[in-house]
């Protein structure tokens, strides 16, 4: 990594100003350390957000409010959050390893850079780094996108974001608030970034309203069960009425450059009771428009199954 100055800002404004001057934000540092070591970024200044007061509160009783500096471990372990927003707690618990969850933060999880092995290799000048081509197209794309790809084919690595989006969460920054779904951008809109954050803008937290009568779950498909990124995953929030689905949010992870809402799967369960048949139908519906690449056809079936398992799990059925 390059040499840089270290700043411990006393206020969000001071931090924002430093980011405008070529600084980069540090929270847990799990992702930042790797992008620095690979020289994917060479910032003048590292701005330690942990020196700021606040952004550490966690509330799951009357709605969801999580500060950007709250660790994933706290989100995973919070009882009220686990009761009212189960998918969010389950998604946080599925991230990395205990060591990573003890240090990694909500803000970092939302803003982390993709894991694409071409992007992560400093020697490969891909589209995302200002180059001319997405190397995954002609190369090895087994971990890449089956939805929303092109011209770059990364998948967004966050587990927590799809679960929050399934609860219609909003993200709050030092400048604005917006639905979390709108925070993320496809490569076709902006190939260099994964979200709409402007220079000097800092995520301070997320919020979501209470959703009485909902059942939720997050399911993550991994190559190595103990510690891995999502090959595919699914967050489900079901609003139930008389044993039938009144409304559903189904959001996929690990399959698209952004958390991928599957309206097809949502429509497939609406008005129906959750059974293995319904869940299977929803899984099939979710992948009907999938566009697998040369090496990731397996993710189509895997994703259908992720939807199926998440629906059954949310509905409290044995899977």
């Amino acid at each position, binding site marked *: 990594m*390059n*040499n840089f100055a270290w700043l411990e800002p006393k206020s969000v404004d001071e931090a924002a100003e430093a980011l405008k001057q070529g600084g980069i934000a540090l929270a847990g540092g799990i992702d930042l350390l790797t992008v620095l070591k690979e*020289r994917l970024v060479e910032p003048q200044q590292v701005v330690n957000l942990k020196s700021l007061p606040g952004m550490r509160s966690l509330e799951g009783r009357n709605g969801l409010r999580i500060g950007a500096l709250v660790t994933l471990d706290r989100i995973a372990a919070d009882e009220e959050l686990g009761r009212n927003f189960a998918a969010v707690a389950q998604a946080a618990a599925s991230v990395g390893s205990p060591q990573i969850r003890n240090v990694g933060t909500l803000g970092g999880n939302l803003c982390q850079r993709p*894991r694409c*092995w*071409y992007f992560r*290799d400093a*020697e*490969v000048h891909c589209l995302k780094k200002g180059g001319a081509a997405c*190397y995954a197209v*002609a*190369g*090895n794309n*087994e*971990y890449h996108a089956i939805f929303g790809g092109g011209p770059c084919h990364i998948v967004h690595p966050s587990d927590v974001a799809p679960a929050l989006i399934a609860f219609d969460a909003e993200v709050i920054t030092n400048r604005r608030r917006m639905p979390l779904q709108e925070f993320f951008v496809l490569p076709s809109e902006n190939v260099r970034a994964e979200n709409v954050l402007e220079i000097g803008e800092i995520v301070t937290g997320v919020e979501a309203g209470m959703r009485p009568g909902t059942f939720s779950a997050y399911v993550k*498909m*991994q*190559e*190595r*069960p*103990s*510690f*891995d990124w999502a*090959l595919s995953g699914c967050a489900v929030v079901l609003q139930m009425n008389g044993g039938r689905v009144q409304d559903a949010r189904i959001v996929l992870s690990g399959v698209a450059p952004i958390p991928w809402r599957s309206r097809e799967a949502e429509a497939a369960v609406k008005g129906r009771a959750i059974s293995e048949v319904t869940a299977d139908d929803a899984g099939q519906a979710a992948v009907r428009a999938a566009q697998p690449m040369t*090496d*990731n*056809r*397996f993710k189509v*079936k*895997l994703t259908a*199954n992720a939807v*199926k*398992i998440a629906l059954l799990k949310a509905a409290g059925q044995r*899977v």
Partner: protein
Amino acid sequence: MPQEQVRWNDPKTSRYLNKRIPRVDGPDKVTGAAKYTYDIALPGMLYGKILRCPHANARVESIDVSAAKAMPGVRAIIDDISKTARFAGQEIAAVAADTEEIARDAIHAIRVTYDVQPHVVNTRAGRNDPDRVGDPAELSEGADPSTLWSQAAAVIEAEYYVPVREHLSLETHGIVFRWDGDDKATAWVSTQAVHGVAGGLANALRIQRQDLTVICNHMGGGFGSKFSAGTEGSVCGRLARLAGKPVKLMLDRYEEQVATGNGPDALMQCKAAMTADGKLLAIEADLWGTNGPGKRWGVAFPYRTVYNLPNIRTRSHGVSTNTGGARALRAPGHPQGNFLTETVLDELAAKVGLDPLEVRKKNVLRAVWREQLDAGAKGIGWERRNKTPGAVSGRYLRGMGCACNTWGGGGRGGSRCDVRIGSDGSVWVGIGTQDLGTGTRTYVAAIVAEDLGLPIERVHAEIGSSKLGQSGGSGGSVTTASVAPAVKMAALAARARLFEVAAPMLGVSAGDLECADGRVQARRNPSNSLSFEQVCAKLPPGGIEERGEWNRSLQQSGVAGAQFVEVEVDTWTGNVRPIKVVAVQDCGYALNRLAVESQIIGGVIQGLSMALFEDRKMDDPTGRMLNPDMENYKVLGALEVPEIVPIVFETHDKVTGLGEPPVIPTAAATGNAVFNATGIRIRTLPITPRRWFDALEEQS
């Protein structure tokens, strides 16, 4: 002492040998007191760093080190390591600097222009290029298989693939090098061959072998990749000479994974046949694989050291690729050849409709495997296996598989061990071997303690230095059978000297004495005794020193084993969860049963990792390794390790090594278990969700 009279100690009366002995250096490792090469820090020490070519096939056109040279803290630069690179990661230049950070920045500041040539980095991509494929090694025995297909009860024809695997030593390769004058030096090296490195590195640096001391007290894994100090070793020595200061050069994870060896892949197209009574009838196969830039390549297929395979035609083709060169990896060539053979055998058994266990018992060469297969079948509960693979449905399916192995593990001559006993009663044993992680230091101490009748804590065992008596590298599972006999002979020689001194003191002949419980005593009248210290007090003032040489009669080559794996396949996710492994392994006289069990368990873990996760991925377009890290080069984690039951199956009373054999059959047994659970045959390792869903699609 006549060699044929020497025997290992009777387990009925021994205190340590053939028992479970905790490692003498275990507490040091747990507390951090043990110093690895990584831990060595010398006064004034600099840090070395290597510039590696980013291209898979390139020639250096120009190299400009001026910016690096001008950086404060840079003390030495080498710019002539290689003018060509045959893989991405080959060494081009190096620097030594005051800190590791400066060294990295300096490497970054070196400007190299390359003439980049076309590359091939995968066996599949290179096997049709005649310039890249070596002359095939042909094996032709018995009748021509093409005349036999019609006589077979079952014929299969399929393609199989075992990918390139990495050693993944947790301590990377590296060295700390210090010149002690113009032509003398000391090197701390993470190595599995202190004497071998002393010879090789001294030669590379043009000094006398005896003038270079190589030290490796503890090492964090080698698995066959650390016999030499490598390019980084001689580069470090040169940097230290140029800078006039000691230099530490430890590789990082990227370097470790691209440049320090790997176990080659094996791609096979095979046709094979079985008779109705379960006898293997014929095998015809073409195989390809890559060892890196060279064209020599081969794996142990078919596995004729276990099975009777009468009619064979195989052609093995080495493919030259622009990838880091292969090195020995724990039973080189065997896990690949074993997976190919045992999978073919299992497929044929299923097609004929016979129990795969009975088929193996029919085809093995010797009775020992039949006994071991029965022992393993009992251990895993073979009767619980899925009798009709593919007939059961549901999300989670369980099944069992098995496979057999063999290996040498006999010793090599030339090891020399010294034992010193001081007149103060102190005991020291030294031999220039090293502990690859198998527990060498512990049995060196235990052998001496046993024959001198002392607690093991009383024996100071020193290994890991080329200044100690000659011994070979730790490879081929030969270490124990090479080292232990020499230690035993040294201990007996030292004891004989003690007996000579004690005999007149006790009034019995030396031949009637024994050592036990810290005393030297008359064998027929143990109350007629002296304490060990009383005898030592009568030794010459400087004590005594005796040397032991390797003794053939204490060791033997050749082991057999059989493993059984039970898995649970999640058919919705494609995850394979190992449930239980029973590993039956012969090793002759187990010097330390605890270490033997650890070795079996470690081999099984590495074998499961091969079955389920390990896969070096080279990118065809860029020629670069896609997973030179531990994020995407995946290995079995602690939570994936199942119950492992080692069964130490002793067939004789000589010492035989078993570092390698337990890793050989695990992957094959795992794949066979997946088939038994689901009826789906996965012929490409590792068995990941991708392979699972691809196999489902292929079947439907």
